[in-house]
């Protein structure tokens, strides 16, 4: 007989040991699968995997940049999820932020001085993301609509909107591509710190991480978010204006998503495509949950996901395997990591066959 009970609290050392064990186990299973399917030596594969993330200075920078963007979006989603508002609209909020950035760069590119242009981009991208999250938040606060569906569908609206403007701005005509915006003048490109292309993004996200930690842990707002998340009735009872907290939190959530769009369009890609968010609006949900909404732990969980993605794509390049194989490995590792959370939260007891159980089963 198996009995599952909820654990009280597990000491950190023990929970980390379980997580570590799950990663080791997942690597063993990945090794078995790799050997059976490809005949490759699993140790070689792991070395390649590791090299994909850390193999060169450039790879480390790319790794850090990818972590920064994923972390930024995860941080944006965190206050909403902590409040149990299922914001699945990160993707769309990033897209409209990117769209607003691109609009400034294209329409104002050679008309106003660069610092002013960048200021416009920052303001409009944050506003666009905030508005995109505000709409479902207002509906939730006023009429208690289902935010999961609403935010999800806002993603499709955003994608179509971006697709429309790509056709308006495409170069050359009919190609369905904008290309790099202001490639010759670099107008509206976020400044580069020294020789490091991605350093600015990384610093900005690091600052947001600290601010978000302080916001959630030490401010009245942060406290209200956790109370609303635990129970709206309790919140109401202690005199918290729940609709107000919902709207305010979603404004913040959308604003940071919009800011992530700014970092992508203005900071690194300098173009706009419908796939620029690349599913990170959803991956961010996993990052936030794995880290139990602690911004500093989220550095770890986003590192883990980006590390696996980079490593997995290196495998497909190095061994000529299909990308799907890399996805299989990523899936296995995630399965174990998420599974380990189950063993951390719940206790499993294999009880002996007793009279009592026997009776209960008859």
């Amino acid at each position, binding site marked *: 007989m198996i009995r599952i009970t909820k654990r009280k609290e597990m000491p950190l050392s023990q929970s980390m040991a379980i997580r570590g064990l799950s990663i080791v186990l997942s690597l063993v299973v990945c090794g078995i699968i790799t050997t059976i399917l490809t005949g490759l030596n699993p140790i070689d594969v792991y070395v390649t995997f590791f090299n994909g993330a850390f193999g060169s200075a450039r790879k480390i920078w790319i790794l850090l940049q990818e972590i920064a963007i994923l972390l930024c979006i995860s941080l944006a989603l965190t206050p909403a999820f902590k409040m149990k508002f299922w914001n699945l609209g990160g993707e769309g909020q990033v897209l409209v932020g990117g769209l607003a950035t691109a609009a400034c760069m294209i329409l104002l590119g050679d008309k106003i001085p660069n610092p002013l242009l960048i200021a416009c981009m920052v303001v409009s991208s944050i506003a666009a993301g905030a508005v995109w999250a505000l709409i479902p938040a207002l509906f939730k606060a006023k009429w208690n609509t289902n935010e999961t569906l609403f935010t999800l569908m806002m993603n499709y609206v955003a994608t179509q909107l971006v697709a429309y403007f790509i056709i308006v701005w495409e170069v050359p005509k*009919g190609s*369905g591509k904008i290309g790099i915006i202001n490639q010759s003048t670099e107008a509206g490109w976020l400044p580069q710190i020294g020789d490091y292309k991605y350093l600015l993004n990384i610093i900005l996200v690091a600052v947001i991480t600290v601010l978000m930690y302080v916001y959630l842990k030490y401010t009245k707002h942060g406290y209200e978010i956790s109370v609303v998340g635990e129970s709206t009735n309790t919140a109401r009872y202690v005199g918290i204006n729940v609709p107000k907290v919902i709207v305010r939190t979603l404004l913040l959530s959308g604003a940071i998503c919009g800011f992530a769009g700014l970092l992508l369009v203005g900071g690194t*890609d300098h173009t706009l495509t419908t796939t620029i968010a690349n599913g990170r609006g959803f991956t961010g949900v996993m990052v936030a949950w794995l880290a139990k909404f602690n911004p500093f732990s989220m550095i770890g969980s986003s590192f883990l996901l980006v590390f696996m993605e980079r490593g997995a794509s290196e495998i497909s390049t190095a061994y000529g395997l299909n990308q799907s194989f890399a996805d299989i490995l990523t899936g296995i590792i995630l399965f174990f990591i998420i599974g380990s959370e189950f063993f951390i939260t719940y206790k499993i007891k294999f009880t002996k*066959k007793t009279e009592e159980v026997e009776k209960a089963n008859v």
Partner: protein
Amino acid sequence: MKSITEHTFSRRQFVKLGGGSAIALALSGCASSGSNASSGASASTDAGSSSDSASIKPGFITLHDENSTYDLNFINAAKEACKELGISEDTYMLKTNVPEGQECYNAAAELADAGCNIIFADSFGHEDYMIQAAKEFPDIQFCHSTGTKAHTEGLDNYHNAFASIYEGRYLAGVAAGMKLNEMIDSGKITADQAKMGYVGAYTYAEVISGYTSFYLGAKSVCPSVTMEVTFTGSWYDETAEKEGATKLINDGCVLISQHADSMGAPTACENAGVPDVSYNGSTQDACPNTYIISSRINWVPYYKYAIQAVMDGSAIDTDWTGTLSTGSVELTDLNTSVAAEGTQDKLNEVKGKLEDGSLHVFDTSTFTVKGAKLDSYKADVDTDANYTPDTEVVSDGYFHESEYRSAPYFDVQIDGIELLDTAF
């Protein structure tokens, strides 16, 4: 109760089995490391025998992987070109699923870091990022297929390539026209019912050039032919392409062709029993009863040419246009059970004329624009945001396609072709 005990037992058994497989893993791990060692040895002897290919290391970037017919065409060409040049599989590098954004620059830079001295990319949207990488790595050659900017960018190490695929389309059109003639002769349709349908991706010059040459090919043998074109707004959208083809068939089109990369249109044709002229490669296996012929670009000649140039230390053309003569434009697998009789002979004849220059696809005496002959046309050869026409491309009685740059720039709407939607 019995079931519970059994369950417990089987769980234990499972653990045992798990242990067993761990041992199996350990064994197979040893076995595979052994075989790896031997393959490593054979690789080093390979390198010893072909000394001139020792320093060359090509890198390839593709938008999707083998599941896209478009990228598969490039990946196969990359493998074949390397094989023919004696470059071992461990030497060249292939990065698939690289999106058209900063990832492309990163991928190119990583390939450069890994020691590649020539790097190829296959998708139109990769171009700007390839240019960015080319500026940063002046000693490495960057070759971009289907791009338009190399001739104006002024970089020594950045190159564009395309093929005169309009000639292939024209030949495919001839095969389509012969099929229409067969239908007219057999009384299946009347001459003025000879209407073709075409599923295009975007209203982009590459697509316009493609469907116009296809139409002119058909018209050269079947003068009464007309054509309807619908656009999907995507290079790969199976559902939209299937729906587009079905719409055209319901509209009375008796033959379909397409310029998009999925199996959508060929499948719709097979289901409806309407003949189809395919693209990117044969679709005969999936559509044995309707597939006539397919045209495609063969990238092997370009890859071999560019890699060879790096090996020899010679310059690569800024803008390289493959032709029928270089083997870059191909017709694949004429399906004789569907195509009209005598198609192959006719194709050989027309192909000969195209190659010796006695026949031009865009001969201005064969088509009209708004009822008038096209005597002069300024095309947008130099890509810019404002889409400004800059180069006169009509002379000597024909439109000079792919001569002022390799990527197509024919974007004229000629009479006889009706566009059903131009939203994209």
